[in-house]
């Protein structure tokens, strides 16, 4: 029986608060307290990669062991090109992994998780990484935009774990209240809430919950459901004290594919052994998926302290969500090299593959034929440690990009990995999500997946440093 073996969630730091939104749109009320939005160098895939890396680390599962990477999103940067494969690069999945994309609707995350939990033969080959991620926007002048959000959740499914799948249920309805046409970046909806009230989210969730409950021997202890900010438990027919995640959704907004799974993560964190959790996700125009998750034993994900929220003005929010055009982000690869060089180096540059010298232990990144420190020629392929500390830095005021593209000054740090060789064990990267005035020699930092520039519509994914919250320098 497949089980959930680890999980992690990721919520980007930038947020638009109800107050900031009101300054731009006095007549529109934000349903929650805030909505999140990716940083300028983030997207659905970098958020998923971050959650995935954290989940694998929490479960102490090397990416090289994965049998599959399932990714669900309705907001991939690509119409045609696998987002799952990009995240698979980040987590170093092996080349024979089943790398599959789910999505097209916001219940895609749970559908992907169910697919993993129900595929015994696949999990026998190795753990499955399930990712659910979205960054959703509506038309700027429509109140719906203020209720959406951005987040990602990751679950590792393996033959051994702590929470197993019980009953499950699927429901289908093409009835649609909201949709996003091809080529459009905003979710449209009928400007008539009767569509939702009479036959959409509430009624469908309620109907499928009832159908699902009929399969269950006893009432679940917790409910992790697709929620929109402000949803009341009684409208879904669920006891208020058993509903989890409402607080999170009110701060994050409706994060699409990640929505119900963020709540599942909250429920898993709170639940004791023996408890059951009903998780249900809804997608307008697609239907529902439901599952009962039974906690067989407790498993506490190592929770890093939450990163400080960055409250945006509406003008900043407009830049973050692309209402004001920005030009390119800094490149992660030499532009002269264009695509061949980028593709050749991706294994090391996105997968963070390093070579640890078998003779002297020095970490060579990117890998080299001769060890930088001792000229050894035998290496063990290892992922570069993601945590390090600043060796030196500078604050860059003149760069080949316009100031709006990345807030200046840009801070570039060199860090030493563990264990540092004399030459090896160091990486250079931009710093992101930081108050640059807090960067000093010795500041603890971690590598985080981020976007670089875009060439021919292809995003160059790579890594930046972010100060480690709670770490002591």
């Amino acid at each position, binding site marked *: 029986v497949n089980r959930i073996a680890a999980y992690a969630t990721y919520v980007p730091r930038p947020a638009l608060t109800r107050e900031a939104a009101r300054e731009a749109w006095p007549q529109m009320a934000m349903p929650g307290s805030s909505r999140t939005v990716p940083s300028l160098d983030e997207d659905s895939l970098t958020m998923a990669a971050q959650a995935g890396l954290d989940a694998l680390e929490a479960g102490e599962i090397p990416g090289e062991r994965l049998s599959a990477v399932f990714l669900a999103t309705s907001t991939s940067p690509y119409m045609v090109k696998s987002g799952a494969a990009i995240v698979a690069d980040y987590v170093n999945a092996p080349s024979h992994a089943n790398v599959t994309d789910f999505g097209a609707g916001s219940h895609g995350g749970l559908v992907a998780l169910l697919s993993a939990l129900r595929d015994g033969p696949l999990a026998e080959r190795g753990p499955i990484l399930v990712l659910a991620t979205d960054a959703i926007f509506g038309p700027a002048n429509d109140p719906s935009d203020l209720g959406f959000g951005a987040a990602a959740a990751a679950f590792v499914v393996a033959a051994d774990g702590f929470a197993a799948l019980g009953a499950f249920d699927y429901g289908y309805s093409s009835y649609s209240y909201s949709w996003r046409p091809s080529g459009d970046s905003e979710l449209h909806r009928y400007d008539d809430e009767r569509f939702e009230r009479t036959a959409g989210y509430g009624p469908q969730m309620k109907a499928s919950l009832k159908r699902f409950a009929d399969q269950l021997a006893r009432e679940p202890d917790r409910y992790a459901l697709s929620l929109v900010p402000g949803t009341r438990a009684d409208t879904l027919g669920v006891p208020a004290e058993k509903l989890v995640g409402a607080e999170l959704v009110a701060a994050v907004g409706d994060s699409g594919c990640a929505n119900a799974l963020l709540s599942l993560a909250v429920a898993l964190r709170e639940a004791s052994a023996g408890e059951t959790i009903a998780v249900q996700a809804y997608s307008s125009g697609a239907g529902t998926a439901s599952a009962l998750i039974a906690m067989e034993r407790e498993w506490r994900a190592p929770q890093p302290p939450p990163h400080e929220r960055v409250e945006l003005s509406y003008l900043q929010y407009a830049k973050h969500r692309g209402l004001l055009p920005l030009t390119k982000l800094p490149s992660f690869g*030499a*532009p002269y090299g264009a695509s061949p060089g980028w593709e050749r180096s991706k294994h090391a540059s996105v997968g963070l593959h390093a070579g640890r010298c078998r003779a002297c232990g020095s970490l060579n990144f990117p890998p080299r034929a001769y060890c*930088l420190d001792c000229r050894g020629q035998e290496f063990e392929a290892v992922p570069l440690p993601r945590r390090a500390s600043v060796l030196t830095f*500078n604050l*860059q005021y*003149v760069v*080949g990009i316009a100031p709006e593209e990345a807030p200046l000054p840009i801070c*570039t740090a060199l860090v030493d990995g563990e264990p540092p060789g004399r030459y090896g064990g160091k990486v250079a990267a931009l710093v992101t999500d930081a108050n640059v005035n807090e960067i000093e020699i010795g500041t603890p930092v971690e590598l985080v997946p981020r976007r670089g520039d875009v060439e021919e519509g292809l995003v160059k994914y790579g890594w930046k440093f972010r100060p480690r919250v709670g770490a002591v320098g």
Partner: protein
Amino acid sequence: MAGLPVAVVGAGMIRFGERFDLSYEDMVVGAYRACLDSVEHGIDEDRLEAAWLGTCIGSMIRQETVTGAALAEPIRFFPRPVTRVENACCTGSDAVRNAAFAIAAGVYDVVLVVGAEKMRDIPSRDSLVRQTSVMFHEWWAPRGATAPNRFGQFATAHMGAYGTERRHMAMIAEKNHHNGSLNPHSYFRREVSCEQVLAAPIVSWPLGLLDCCPTTDGAAAVIMCRADLAKEFTANPIYMLGSGLATDPLISSWKSEFTSFPATRAAAAAAYKMAGIGAADVDLAEVHDCFTITELITYEDLGFCDPGAGKDWLDAGGPMLGGERPVNTSGGLKAKGHPVGATGVSQVVELWEQLRGEAGERQVQDARIGLTHNMGGIGTIVLVNVFGSERPA
């Protein structure tokens, strides 16, 4: 110098700077003629058997492959051999080194070296900023790297390790601008004060605008020959005594340290050994002050002072005109300018004037031994050439 002794019998350059008025070919011709004019007894141009052309950025900005023909054609040198040299900011110095080696090896008797660079045919913002995208190596360039970025990180580390302050770097800019104001070949012939340097806009903290050398047009040329032929051309030749070239990792995050450039120490050791001298024997030096911090660290790496003591040596006036060992009497890259391929050759022009006692207000008293120092990349490749006024035994 290993092999046959080598002399410099002529050296000349055009005024460095914003030379919108001159094409690349115009600059090559200008430097060549200035060099010919400097040969006191004159020289039959047919005596020049071969030439080396140092040009680096040219191929990037001109978007063409630069060959030796870029020198052979404008001065009607063909069909004689011209080797084009490119080695980042060591380009000019390496052209000098290789020309000298050809003489030392006994292959040629009299040769020409020209360094030339046309950097300002694009807007200045492009020429600085584009370096983000064209710096050599897919693992070097990424992540927002520019030259001021990487040297700025050395400045931060040096400040952290030794208590060096931005004020010390500003003193170097002030000194080099003062020297440049005395040099008719200099791009910037005006003084700047430490206060102005510190108040200038920040480019890459801790480096401000006046800590950075300018992108520059320019060309310089020298004529070298077998030492035993030198007196045919001039009563006062100078001699190349030694040369050292050293390398360090290309990827800047692979440096073994961030407060020193090991390649400078290695290149200097090799050059001193070949010349049979020590750092104490050097009377003056033209060093690579692409950024003020580079010059400060170079004092330490060349052995002019102890590691970490660059700031104290500055406070004591060591590198100033009239100081213990004047550095960058020409104004250096900072004030004279840095047309990459021409820079190393123009440093020989300064030593030519200094070691012959012809440097006017910039003259270092009793200058007998001088060195040139160039650094490519971020201490990735360093070249030190040593020259003296007396023919080696």
